[in-house]
């Protein structure tokens, strides 16, 4: 590994971490698309800032662009409040318009601006090590590493300082307001941090891929845990893993680093989406099948409990009256028998004492809206699951 190679990987990893942290909160607050809006609409701010500072890495430029990001959020919210269009349309109108202004500004001033449309979409991570921070002649490393490092440090400090507030306002806005934590301050604080991060990362990965770096690690983590701290760590882990692996894939294919980072992220998400133990696609599919059988079983038991008449409890009634297909009624009957919930004599089904107990308890929980107690109760009663 050469020196620039190591530096690129360090920058990529730092960008990934800096994006993943606000990303977690955006995903939890159902505001993932705001990151998309911000990342597009900072472009005109970035270009105008460049006209003023003539330095893509100037802190003033970053601040200016970040302010454009926050203004976007305010603009979107203002349009939503007019009620002229639906909420999602407001987002969908604002950011393409601002992004277009940015693209046109770049195209019209192509000679003055050291930015081209490719850089806007992909960033220029490969060139990052060549722009060095020199203070009185001493080489302190790549400029972009310093910038992202500072942004990351600020983000981490803010998260540690306000962890409790962030947590409460994310999971229970009502409670947080009553505790004196202003939801507005948290909202715009998060928006500001997101904006600054997007602007900083823009240089490295471009306008659209920064969205992937923010949302994908957080979404994958959310499929694995609902604990905020664990989610943050997992998101950071996914981000760094994708950054490093993405770099080597790009190296091997001789293609865009940021594109390849995103692709690796996509594969990581796909893997988690399919195989996450509780909330993954396969797990959900399996559980839904199990639950369908178990709800059918409950229904059947309750039916027996409700009806003392023999004709309502005849085995054929399952098919005729309850309107089930043959397979399902057989599965349900087998499950009930295996769990000693019912007995069958002369094709008449009767509840056992255990079956009666189970049914009445389940019914009580449902009538009193204590649905969460049903799952543990099943563990107590069932020898075999559906």
């Amino acid at each position, binding site marked *: 590994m050469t020196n620039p190679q190591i530096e690129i990987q360090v920058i990529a990893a730092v960008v990934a971490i800096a994006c993943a942290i606000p990303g977690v909160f955006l995903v939890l607050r159902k505001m993932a698309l705001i990151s998309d809006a911000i990342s597009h609409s900072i472009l005109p701010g970035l270009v105008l800032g460049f006209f003023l500072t003539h330095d893509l890495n100037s802190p003033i430029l970053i601040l200016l662009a970040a302010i454009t990001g926050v203004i976007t959020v305010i603009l979107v919210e203002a349009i939503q409040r*007019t009620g002229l269009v639906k909420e999602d349309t407001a987002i969908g109108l604002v950011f393409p318009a601002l992004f277009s202004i940015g693209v046109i500004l770049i195209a019209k001033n192509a000679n003055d601006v050291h930015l081209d449309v490719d850089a806007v979409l992909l960033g220029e991570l490969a060139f990052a090590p060549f722009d060095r921070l020199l203070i009185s002649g001493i080489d302190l490393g790549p400029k972009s590493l310093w910038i992202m490092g500072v942004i990351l440090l600020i983000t981490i400090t803010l998260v540690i300082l306000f962890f409790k507030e962030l947590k409460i306002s994310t999971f229970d806005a009502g409670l947080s307001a009553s505790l004196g934590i202003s939801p507005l301050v948290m909202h715009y604080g998060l928006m500001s941090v997101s904006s600054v991060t997007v602007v900083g990362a823009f240089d490295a990965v471009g306008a659209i891929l920064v969205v992937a770096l923010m949302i994908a690690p957080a979404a994958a983590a959310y499929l694995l845990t609902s604990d905020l701290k664990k989610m943050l760590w997992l998101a950071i882990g996914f981000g760094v893993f994708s950054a490093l692996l993405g770099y080597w894939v790009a190296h091997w294919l001789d293609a865009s680093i940021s594109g390849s980072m995103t692709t690796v992220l996509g594969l990581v998400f796909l893997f988690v989406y399919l195989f996450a133990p509780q909330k993954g696609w396969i797990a959900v599919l399996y559980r839904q099948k199990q639950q369908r059988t178990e709800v059918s079983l409950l229904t059947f038991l309750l039916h027996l409990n409700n009806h003392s008449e023999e004709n309502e409890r005849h085995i054929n009634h399952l098919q005729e009256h309850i309107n089930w297909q043959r397979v399902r009624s057989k599965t349900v009957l087998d499950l009930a028998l295996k769990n000693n919930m019912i007995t069958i004599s002369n094709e008449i089904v009767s509840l056992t004492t255990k079956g009666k107990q189970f049914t009445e308890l389940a019914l009580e929980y449902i009538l009193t809206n204590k649905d969460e107690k049903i799952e543990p109760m099943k563990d107590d009663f069932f020898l075999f699951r559906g």
Partner: protein
Amino acid sequence: MSLFDYFDQVFSDYTLRTITLGTAVLGAACGMLGSFAVLRKQSLLGDAISHAALPGIALAFLITGTKDTNLLLMGALISGLIGTFWIRGIIKKTHLKTDTALGLILSLFFGFGMLLLTFIQKQPNANQAGLDKYLFGQAATLVESDVTLMIFVTLMCALVLLLFWKEFKILLFDADFTKTLGFNTRFIDILITFFIVLAIVLGLQTVGVVLMSALLLAPAAAARQWTNRLSSMILLAALFGAFSGVFGTAISASQNNLSTGPVIVLVAAVFVLISFVFSPGRGLLFRELRFRQNRRDLQLKKTLQLMHSIAKTHDDISHPHAIRILNNFQGFTKRSLQKMEEKQWITLQQHHWSLTEKGYFAAENMFNETTHDESTN
């Protein structure tokens, strides 16, 4: 070439005519179908689909090695549909919300597409250039066969729209009710979604994947402000879309080095802005004016009520009272008193006012009116 030259040559120059016709038809189709996307609250789905189309274009090129537009768009259609189904899968099967699912698919597919594009660029294949026109669109690359395809698809859309007009309308307004009437809502739903995806794919060459969704939304959002009828909304949206397409293309063609997509989007955004502010029914300007007018009226009525309550205590309703006694209450000015005199509710003499018969009845009826209003609210 200046903007003026463009329109001067549009009818004589074959290429310009083709391009202009193409963008006009495209804009109309997008406006038409975009109306459905907007009314179904699927505005951002279009954005995700258009971004998700990029890897399809790149893969189609990698596999076939040709730059035939139809083949590339077929790739775009397939990968756009895969993106759509994955979004549905994420929303239905996991606890991730719509916004996360859209953002994920949009950025992940686009990133993969960019990876493929940069990979293609590095290939020693002379044929590779020009794929990046699908990023921001290049109307100048439209040829006659592209435009023919656009016209064909648009006419088909229009035909289906006319045929199933009633079904589309009722599904958009009240899906549950539609189901109870015996209509197959799934079929109507898939039909609408399919045509929206088709419109997006059709526009990729002209507007590009990054900004395509805006051409879908903006004309419809603008048109909604001017009318309360679905049919006029769709016609207006088609018109706005067509104009945005033509003007955008004209402006970008008359400048160097300018992609069509951003310009078309900005033109459409101007339509939206004008509609938001100046539409007579819903526009912000008139809404504010009406709001102020109402507030003034309300203040006058309040004062009249007060006068009515004072005058009621006298046998003669037009007995003059000192303006001074209104001082304890707020909400009247010299101007508002004059205004009331103009309405012949009161007469003013020096420091006194007296209620007219008309004013007295106005006050009484107003009371009845307000209770009636409340009862219907």
